């Protein structure tokens, strides 16, 4: 049965790795294959998994994270040395390390109950929302692609280009406050949209697979930005490093709750983007066609839907949304000048966010906030508990792993296999996916 096809993870992960310009391409890895039909089927499975499975996947990931935290904790290791003599010590140390880490995440990401007053305590969640903003925006972009059957793993490139465009307008142009910000935002969105348009255009015109094109465009964007950062165009003349000048205050997203909280206007915009996506996918004619193309391109074509045009539209909308993440990075997060690392891995984390949110706009919104909390919290965790922040990517990866393998989660929790309501649909997909 097609429902039990192997998970996509290996393919998706290799593709993700390869798509990362910082990953060594000469490492002897074979060039990525376009996702096989079964990858599409499994992806669809992941997107359609029930809410329960999603929550359980997160839970399992947190357990795995806990094991990692405990096993790398020095107290636990010491206590384990005399485990047979006093097993209680080991258990206590494990509890200490795990509880300490997750409490630190809560304090850093949700609410710091050790803070002297409510105002300081609440800064944690506001901080998390700041981290969540670009993840949500990029996650929405990826999700729109997924729903339309397009694998956009070029988030990095789109973020870099958008950041450069918005950032340049932000530091090089002088305009009145407000207008400057609007122009900078628009410039970034156009940049991201244009970068994505190239993908859609190549796919529509030549049938090039978007996975390969987006991977390559990630490199092109990275080296382009690198080049520009070393040229007078983007480089801050007063700095020795290839960094851009600071954004002008007129272009920067204003703080929503005063200067003591990092939350800024970008978050409002991303709420707007989520509402837009909800409308687009659920209520608009264009979104209807996107989904039709995503589910069954052949039937969509017979119904008079112009596939190539749709691929271009999807990519542009996806690129604009992902591009907003880049805009936010330069106008909201790091306003003191950007370098080649401005994408901060958001382009890839967004894929996880989209999967976790099952490609539903509000699901992506929630997933983005969860990841924002984890990210903000992980810094506190490292500072307070000495746990390496790299636990975070592990947790994130495990989430993807389990999302892509619902049977695994069902097996762990002994959930009944739901009747394959989609059995026919899926089997048909196996035949369709030529």
């Amino acid at each position, binding site marked *: 049965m097609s429902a039990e096809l192997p998970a996509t993870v290996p393919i998706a992960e290799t593709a993700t790795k390869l798509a990362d310009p910082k990953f060594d391409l000469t490492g002897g890895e074979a060039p990525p294959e376009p996702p096989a039909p079964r990858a599409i089927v499994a992806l669809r499975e992941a997107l359609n998994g029930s809410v329960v499975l999603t929550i359980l996947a997160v839970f399992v990931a947190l357990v795995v994270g806990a094991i990692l935290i405990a096993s790398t904790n020095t107290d636990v290791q010491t206590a384990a040395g005399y485990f047979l003599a006093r097993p209680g010590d080991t258990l206590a140390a494990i509890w200490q390390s795990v509880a300490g880490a997750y409490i630190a995440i809560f304090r850093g990401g949700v609410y710091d109950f050790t803070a002297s007053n409510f105002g300081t305590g609440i800064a944690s969640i506001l901080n998390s929302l700041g981290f969540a903003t670009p993840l949500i925006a990029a996650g929405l972009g990826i999700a729109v692609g997924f729903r339309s059957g397009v694998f956009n793993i070029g988030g990095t490139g789109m973020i870099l280009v958008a950041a450069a465009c918005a950032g340049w307008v932000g530091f090089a142009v002088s305009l009145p406050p407000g207008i400057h910000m609007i122009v900078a935002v628009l410039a970034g969105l156009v940049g991201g949209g244009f970068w994505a348009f190239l993908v859609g255009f190549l796919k529509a015109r030549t049938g090039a697979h978007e996975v390969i094109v987006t991977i390559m465009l990630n490199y092109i964007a990275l080296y382009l930005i690198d080049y520009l950062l070393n040229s007078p165009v983007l480089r801050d003349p007063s700095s020795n490093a290839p960094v851009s000048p600071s954004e002008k205050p007129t272009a920067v997203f204003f703080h929503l709750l005063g200067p003591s909280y990092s939350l800024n206007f970008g978050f409002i915009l991303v709420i707007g983007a989520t509402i837009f996506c909800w409308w687009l996918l659920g209520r608009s004619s264009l979104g209807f066609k996107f*989904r*039709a193309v995503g589910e069954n391109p052949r039937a969509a074509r*017979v119904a008079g839907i112009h596939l190539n045009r749709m691929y271009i539209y999807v990519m542009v909308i996806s690129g604009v949304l992902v591009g907003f993440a880049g805009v936010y990075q330069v106008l909201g997060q790091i306003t003191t000048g950007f370098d080649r690392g401005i994408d901060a891995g958001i382009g890839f984390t967004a894929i996880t966010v989209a999967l976790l949110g099952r490609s539903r706009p509000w699901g992506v919104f929630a997933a983005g906030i969860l990841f924002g909390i984890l990210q903000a919290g992980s810094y506190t965790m490292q500072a307070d508990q000495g746990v390496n922040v790299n636990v975070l990517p592990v947790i994130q990866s495990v989430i993807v792993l389990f999302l892509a393998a619902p049977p695994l989660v069902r097996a762990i929790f002994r959930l009944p296999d739901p009747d394959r*309501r989609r059995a026919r649909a899926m089997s*048909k997909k196996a*035949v369709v996916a030529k």
Partner: protein
Amino acid sequence: MKLELRGITKTFGALVANDHIDLTVQPGEIHCLLGENGAGKSTLMNILYGLYRADSGEILLDDVVQHFSGPGDAARAGIGMVHQHFMLIPVFTVAENVMLGHEESKFGFLDLPAARARVREISARFGFDVDPDALIEDLPVGVQQRVEIIKALSREAKVLVFDEPTAVLTPQETDELMGIMKQLKDAGAAIVFITHKLREVREVADKITVIRLGKVVGEAKPTATNAELASLMVGRSIDLTIAKSKVKAKEPALVVEGLTIHNAQGHVVVNNVSFQVRAGEILAVAGVQGNGQTELTEALLGLQDRVMGTIDLDGKSIRHLPIHKVLAEGVGFIPEDRQEDALIAEFSIAENLMLDRADGEPFVRHGALQLAYRTKFATDKVKEFDVRAQGIDEVVGSLSGGNQQKVVLARELSRTLRLFVAAQPTRGLDVGSIEFVHERIVATRDAGVPVIVVSTELDEVLALADRIAVMYEGRIVGIVSGDTPRDVLGLMMAGELPAGTKLAA
């Protein structure tokens, strides 16, 4: 092996798809399961095959209760199934598909030669002509069907289920299949055979069980008449011939001249075909599957690329128009393969009903879907076309085959049409639904619309056609009147035009 189902009950939400069904199939028996679309036949068989789990009831093989947790278990217990909707992987070869699920290996490598040999051996036994190394996606449906059968047989199945295997087969292929079923039966297999075609039932069935609304409503003898069987299935009497008024000859509306189509490999699949269809007339295109009919209909819709010749509708060329413009010209289309070309399985009934109208009023205004209108429209159509479903928001993929077809028909027939092209419009439908669809097609004709019906079923062709164009190897052998005798049509379908045949074009 003896198969016994006892008290099988299965519900989907509020719907009882199987309601305490008892069924016994003896070894060496062909047991026909009859019932209207959505009666619960496929559901019952999917339970038997371990794809669904019954809410209650038990499955016994040779009087031993079985507990299947998946198709793997069922296959190991000796059950083989040929599914209504094929379950083959298109990018795999025949041998790989046959091996899938019980791969044999040698030193850790897949033993493909063994699988190939197995395919050859079974092919030889039943006289199939199947290349073990052909890719599934390159094979015509009839051959894909065979691969399904080979797959079922390769595991030494003692209980075989054929779920509407003949819906996609030509009459010849159907006869061959029935021959195979008889061979299997003589070898002692217990066979369950689901079909909507009463002729087939009468030919092979040893026993007949009729299911309606999830319940066993009776048994019938293979000697029962068509009318008896039909009324048992549907619960009312069925008129198997439709009343059709005389065609009122009008102007030619669709004029096709010198149409030639090449396929992707550069072969000519439709060869210099010319015909006309008058407004208010049904032209049936008859012929054995794969003689260019599919490409012909696709070319009319603008779905084919390498087309030469002219296609004029009401004096205006539609040959160079893209699909959405052709649809906008008022061409209604029922594709041959509803699952692949007409429906989106994950979309709801309501969404599928507006699939080719997502561009403007009344379903879309200012780029926004008009959900209230859509709900009303879908509710009306589901009622009018008697689509058996739990509601308009049910996904089409969970509907029974016949009900899926009704959704497509409802969509295409509720537009204002200037040409209606229907390829295999009643494939997989029960007799009651066929009656209904035929009535609708005739009504469309009577409304003055030119209609083209492509069918491989002679019964359907004869029931509907005002004129019949018979295709053979990409050419039209001849266009004859709708009352041409079967034997003449049969010869024409083999490419011969008997001397003295009166042409009607």
